[in-house]
């Protein structure tokens, strides 16, 4: 089980548990370019953890390390206290880590419902031949999964577009469908890559509300990336700040806001 040392209760009364995911001295290089340099931090159960930083700071690379799309050259990834061997992204997903993408990766040709259903694929255990020969069992399974999916669709207020092909949706709704698909996997850890990128103020507010509600309602642990500091500070419990591949700050939004390195990174500092 999780080691609960260091758990705490937030101001709004949510209990944050033990460490779900721990990154230890992660270094990631692309050829000669160092994208991430010796970064360590942890993500606790039930919290909203943000990774922020200016463009090119290595935030997305970090998310890709967590979700298995990149394998770091140095350092360890510990999931539920156990060291994770290098894995393919689909294996990481099967461990209960779901994600969304900065540039939306949805199945454009499928309906919203079908897209969200793909999030349940790992919960469908009936084999190919059993599905062909024993219709009842497969149907029962499909129904059970549909119930979960419908609940999430309701929750994210996308009932009205359930049958619409994703390709026809506007950007903001696509982002929401992607969130729904990730949620359908009932993840132990949900990774959001710039969930508010390219949105207008109203859409950003909607998305913020959904992220908070998801965390509150399902107790989902969330790690998100954003470069818009304002949004992040209101949302998250703890924040990691990256700049040029290094960690320059880590703590509550207030702590980070008053950190001199962070202020320099965001506002710039004169080099004379």
């Amino acid at each position, binding site marked *: 089980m999780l080691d609960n040392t260091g758990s705490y209760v937030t101001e709004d009364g949510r209990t944050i548990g033990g460490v779900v995911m721990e990154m230890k001295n992660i270094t990631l290089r692309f050829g000669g370019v160092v994208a991430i340099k010796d970064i360590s931090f942890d993500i606790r159960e039930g919290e909203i953890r943000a990774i922020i930083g200016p463009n090119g700071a290595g935030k997305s690379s970090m998310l890709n390390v967590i*979700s298995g*799309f990149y394998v770091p050259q140095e350092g360890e990834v510990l999931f539920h206290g156990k060291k994770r061997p290098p894995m*393919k*992204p*689909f*294996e990481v*997903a*099967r461990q209960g880590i*779901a*994600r969304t*993408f900065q540039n939306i*990766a*949805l*199945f*454009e*040709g*499928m309906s919203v419902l*079908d897209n969200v*259903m*793909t*999030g349940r*694929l*790992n919960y*469908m255990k*009936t084999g*190919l031949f059993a*599905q*062909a020969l024993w219709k009842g069992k*497969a149907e029962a399974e499909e129904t059970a999964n549909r119930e979960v999916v419908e609940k999430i669709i309701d929750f994210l207020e996308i009932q009205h577009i359930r049958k619409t092909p994703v390709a026809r949706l506007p950007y903001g709704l696509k982002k929401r469908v992607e969130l729904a*698909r*990730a949620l359908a*996997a009932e993840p132990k850890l949900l990774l959001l890559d710039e969930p508010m990128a390219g949105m207008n103020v109203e859409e950003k507010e909607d998305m913020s509300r959904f992220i908070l509600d998801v965390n509150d309602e399902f107790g989902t642990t969330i790690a998100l990336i954003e470069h818009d500091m304002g949004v992040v500070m209101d949302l998250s419990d703890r924040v990691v700040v990256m700049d040029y591949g290094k960690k320059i700050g880590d703590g509550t939004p207030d702590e980070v806001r008053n950190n001199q390195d962070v202020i320099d990174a965001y506002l710039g500092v004169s080099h004379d």
Partner: protein
Amino acid sequence: MPEQLIFAMEVTLNGLMAGVLYALVALGFVLIYKASGIFNYAQGVMALFAAMTLVGIMQGQVPFSHLINAVFGGHITHFGWTVPSFVAIALTVGVMVLLAWLVQVLVMKHLVGQEPIILFMATIGLAYFLEGVADLMWGSEIKTLDVGLPQGINLWIDETTFNIFGYGFFIDNLDIVATVIAALLVAGLVCFAQYTKQGRAMRAVADDHQAALSVGISLNFIWVLVWSVAGFVALVAGIVWGTKSGVQFSLSLIALKALPVLMLGGFTSIPGAIVGGLIIGVGEKLFEFAIGPMVGGATENWFAYVLALIFLVFRPQGLFGEKIIERV
């Protein structure tokens, strides 16, 4: 009813039947193209390979017997048993799945993310390799394939049409069976793609690799699955065509007939493959019937390609294909 019209009706019916056979081959192409973006040049050779394997297993041939005899001496060619056709078909399905796995592990896995033209070249290589292996495994002589499909004129249609029109239509039983098989196959494939877990995963992979990975789908597994399904479709096409015209090298050339079908129907559409096949089948038979005598016949050899060319000029994405839009 004028005699010409009755003849034309018979020709149309036969054209539809021939079209089903073309569609059967085109389906294999569409499946792989949709799921992996690879135009599989080897689809025709896969049909040949499947048919040869089926005949070989049914007749109890020793695979690679020429090679074995050449290396170790001796004259073994047959095990001395025959295998019932349904057992042989099941075994051949197994061989096609094994082939799919080998293709994925040995070839396609190493070419992930390459340009489509490179993948296409790889399948050309695969086609020639597979052709050689098929020869080496089962010998190059022409074989007859008989899995118990009915053949010859359908007497019921002959009689019925004779009673109505005073002229009996010649419809081959095999063509009717082929139509039924094709319909079942398509229905099966559609059910598989729409309602099973693996089918949903397959559609997901066809749509977006990254997203598929992020929901826990193994691309490798899905590609083996896709090649297996294409191998199965090749087997069905091989059985029908092999029964019709014998199992021989020219069977692999049916792939060339599938090309115009794909250009008409679109490379990404299963209904397109069927409709395209029917149009080509009926079109070439009717054209031969109506125009053929004026130009000295043999129009069936080129009609399909000319029709495909016209389509390329006016509707390059085919009847059902996705419209190609380049965003700037």
